[in-house]
């Protein structure tokens, strides 16, 4: 027993020291905090396109192929997986399940199940086509159109099953398209406007009062439409797009999208601006969406008495101009 005690008391010091040495050499400090699950909406995000297929569902696409969706009017968001990392420029949704997204490098994605599965539309681009598709617009029935760089204009009449090419290949980017009946209006770079009165078979160049790019066009009825563009340009037509005249916008900032709410015209653009007018030929009211926000917006959707904007921020504006920026 005493021998054992002696041996133990001789070994103990070295056991303690050995243990500490082992700890010193092999134990490395570890960070306790795990990586934080990144929020769905991040400060670096940019959303170019937005769709609001019903009162609850908000859907947006943007830079780096990001697709986000909320099914509770913006309270919670999920990020949807897609097969592409290309930036998506625009989104159309016929309902909460069926949607198309278009973007860089001729990317066209579609979903039939609310975005649980997005798939790339095969055989859309011809060989060597890498242009950016800028805007998709949907119409009544299964009609939809896509415009983009290199003169791209595409149309479908069956919810995107089959597409036809309407425009010829040329070094000109179309930024938006608007349809009423068989009449189609496209607007694009350098102030170009073209009109087709036969669903896209024949196009004619419309005289444009500006040389700067036009970014968006919208009609409130068969005759009255508004186009907006860079450097604060606002053009108005009262004859279905045959003639356009420039009106004073009250700003020199770029304008990227325009919408008709049912009561008034709204446009959004750079520096957090939002412009409104009941009669587009009258003076437009220019103000900031929210104070100290200088974010740009390229997407504008009106639904019910609410406006939804997409860009450097995603936000909803209610009828009393109260802004909810989604986070």
């Amino acid at each position, binding site marked *: 027993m005493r021998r054992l005690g002696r041996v133990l008391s001789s070994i103990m010091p070295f056991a303690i020291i050995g243990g500490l040495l082992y*700890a010193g050499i092999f134990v490395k400090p570890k960070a306790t905090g795990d990586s*934080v699950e990144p929020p769905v909406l991040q400060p670096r995000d940019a959303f*170019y396109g937005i769709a609001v297929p019903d009162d609850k569902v908000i859907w947006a696409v943007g830079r780096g192929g990001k697709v986000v969706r909320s099914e509770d009017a913006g309270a919670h968001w999920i990020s949807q997986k897609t097969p592409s990392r290309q*930036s998506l420029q625009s989104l159309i949704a016929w309902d909460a399940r069926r949607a198309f997204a278009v973007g860089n490098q001729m990317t066209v994605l579609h979903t039939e199940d609310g975005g649980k599965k997005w798939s790339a539309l095969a055989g859309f681009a011809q060989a060597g086509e890498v242009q950016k598709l800028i805007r998709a617009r949907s119409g009544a029935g299964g009609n939809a159109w896509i415009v983009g760089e290199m003169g791209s204009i595409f149309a479908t009449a069956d919810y995107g099953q089959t597409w036809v090419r309407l425009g010829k290949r040329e070094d000109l980017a179309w930024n938006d398209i608007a349809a009423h009946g068989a009449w189609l209006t496209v607007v694009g770079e350098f102030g170009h406007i073209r009109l087709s009165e036969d669903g896209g078979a024949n196009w004619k160049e419309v005289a444009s009062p500006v040389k700067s790019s036009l970014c968006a066009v919208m009609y409130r009825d068969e005759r009255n439409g508004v186009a907006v563009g*860079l450097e604060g340009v606002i053009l108005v037509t009262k004859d279905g797009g045959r003639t356009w005249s420039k009106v004073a916008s009250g700003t020199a900032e*770029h304008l990227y999208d325009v919408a008709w709410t049912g009561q008034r015209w709204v446009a959004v653009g750079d520096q957090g601006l939002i412009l409104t007018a009941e009669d587009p030929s009258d003076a437009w009211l220019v103000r900031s969406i929210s104070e100290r926000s200088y974010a740009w917006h390229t997407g504008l959707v009106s639904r019910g008495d609410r406006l939804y904007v997409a860009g450097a921020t995603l936000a909803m504006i209610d009828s009393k101009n109260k802004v909810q920026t989604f986070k």
Partner: protein
Amino acid sequence: MTSPELSKAPESKVARFVRFCIRQRLAVVLVMGVLTAVFALLAVQIEIKTVFDDQLPQNHPYIKVNDQFKQTFGSSNMVSIMLEVKDGDIFQPSVLKKIQKVTQELQLVDGVNQFQIISLAAKKLKEIRASTEGIDIKPLMWPKVPKTQGEIDKLKDAVLRNPLVYGTYVSADLKAALVTVDFYDNEINYKKIYDQIGAITRSVAGDGVTVRVVGEPILYGWVRHYLPETGRIFLVTLVALIALLFLTARTWRGTLLPLLAGVVSSIWALGAARLLGFHLDPLVIVVAFLITARAISHSVQLVTHYDDELAAGAENSAAAATAAMYALFKPGMLGVVADAGCMIVVILTPIPLLQKVAMIGTVWVLTIAISAVVLTPVLLSWIKRPNQFAHPINVRPMMERLLGGCVRIASTRMRYVVVAATAVIFVVSGIYAFKLKVGDANPGSPILWGDSTYNQDAAAINQRFQGADRMFVVFSGDKTDALKEPAALQSMAAFQAYMENQPGVGGTLSMADIVPIMNRILHEGNPRYEELGTSFVENGEIMYLFTSGTDPGDIDRLVDPQYKNASVTILFRDHQGETIRSAISHVEDFVAAHPDSTVKIRLAGGLIGVLAAVNEIILSKQIESIALALLVLVLCCAVAYRSLAAGLFFMVPVLLSNTLTFSFMAWKGIGMNINTLPIAALGIGLGVDYSFYVVDEIREELRRGEPLFKAIELSLMSAGRGVLITAATLITSVVIWYLSSIRFQAEMGILMALWLFISAATSLLVMPALVVLLKPKFIFESVGKSGPSRNTAMLQEAM
């Protein structure tokens, strides 16, 4: 194991040495006086300064990356100056002029890297515009400050449009502007920087503008600024120490000799440091004081023993001094050697500052062998009328009552309570000690108080901007122009997005931020084109356009001219150990999640990068040095007592003082960092000195044939009294440190007091109880074998 024959040989050697010292006392004192004078001449030349480079583990990969890229990507010396307006925003002519003034005058500060002064008023911050003629790139506010309201509105507009300025150099609410400036490592002089930047900021403060400054050079400037105060506190501590020693010892010898021991030690150590070409870091002064406390303790033991020898009937001063020197030679030298051994192991920590501290500290501790163990008894031998007291206040009965209590505890069942309580305290504090944080435990600098100007400035800047503490990681390609590849830029952008989501990260910056902005500008400012180029050629063109509008070197802070290495700068709101560790692990996670990346991510530079390296070294090395220090201790005890069990026995006070200290640090939120590590390392040896004296005397009394409890009583009344005197006086004195404006010193004062208290308490309460309980062989073995009675027998042998 110890046989009288064996133990006799060294004893007689010691006896011969003691006899020689006392006999040749004049020669000994003269030689030491001359040496002290020489060292004093050297010591007064020692420089007091902080060298940041000294704090870095030079072989750590992070430090190598930092050294390679710090000149362009931003070093750990970066200083941020914030000008904050009370009313309105910064876009007022007077405020803009102030920003310009600061920017211009920083050019003249000593050691400044003129290419790294960045602000709204610097030439480097540009406005980039697409115009009909092409790209127009011009400085935002250089060389002239706008005067008219129109010009100011234009500037404001340009700032708001520029994401490289808005939020980074102008706060989001437009109420503050930032100026950042970097310094060359080898030319840095903290005092000059602090004074010169202080003069600049004072000249622009006022008229509704508050100026705030942070950065390591400023922090160390503050420490330097408080140096006179540190000196004054040191002086007050010294005076208090003298007064308390004088009160308790009641003799001039009991006051002046310990003090002399401390002073001589300091002079020798500082002189030696100067000889080695070392300088003194102001924050290391605490270590100096700690060692001085050791010298004083040893000397007090000798004086106390001398007094006891006289009281026990020694013939004269010389005889009493000889007896004291002889009796305490072994525990004294054991204490010194063990302390020195514990100190020297710190040299294995690959941080130059700590290695220098370890070397100076070891030399310093070793000088105690001369200044206290030899010089004190030699001087004591001259005392003429040793039985007079210098003042009538007698605290000795009080001390004896206290010590009597300790004796009663050891000799009654109370000892079980004490040992059990110790075990509980050990376990509890041992568990709690794991809460000790490596790195800084709180936001702001732990060196200064939370309400200090510096820490308030840091908080204000971190609140307004994305963070003042920076880290850069380097994205390295394998060939020239590798970073123009879309994949490389995408990888950088993805990394930035990932890092920005981590807590503690305020923002990131890289060339992958510039390319999309330039791309957008090239496309009429259309945000649909705010993206990286799709090809190597496109990115190359974009970067070419960007650089063609700027001066050579302007883009160096983002990428090298060959486009082979680029920086991603990450801004942090604090540099707590936890923040840094999680940031590093997130970077590593990202690297692990992208194994097929075309570029290599290399960690890490800037302040956060180097701190990460330092913290990594410190944790593992701290445990390692505790282990090695314990090994040294065990070996010292094993050699001195020829028993491994002795090593185990003396581990008790050491381990206890370590777990309690770490618990205290964890509780008070004191992190284990570059400044606290040397003190903690020194503390390892510190816990044991008092126990050496007490236990050794118990052993000696037992050898003389005293019964156990009588031996304990004799030991506690003599060695124990010495412990009580030093502990009480030193604790009371170091508590004065709490008044320091430097929080680090205040906390270290408390820590030191705690240490002294623990080691005194263990030596007076726990060790005697353990002796009774465990009856260690090395203490009891020689009982009855050799028993010269106290004083006289040994003296005859010695003289």
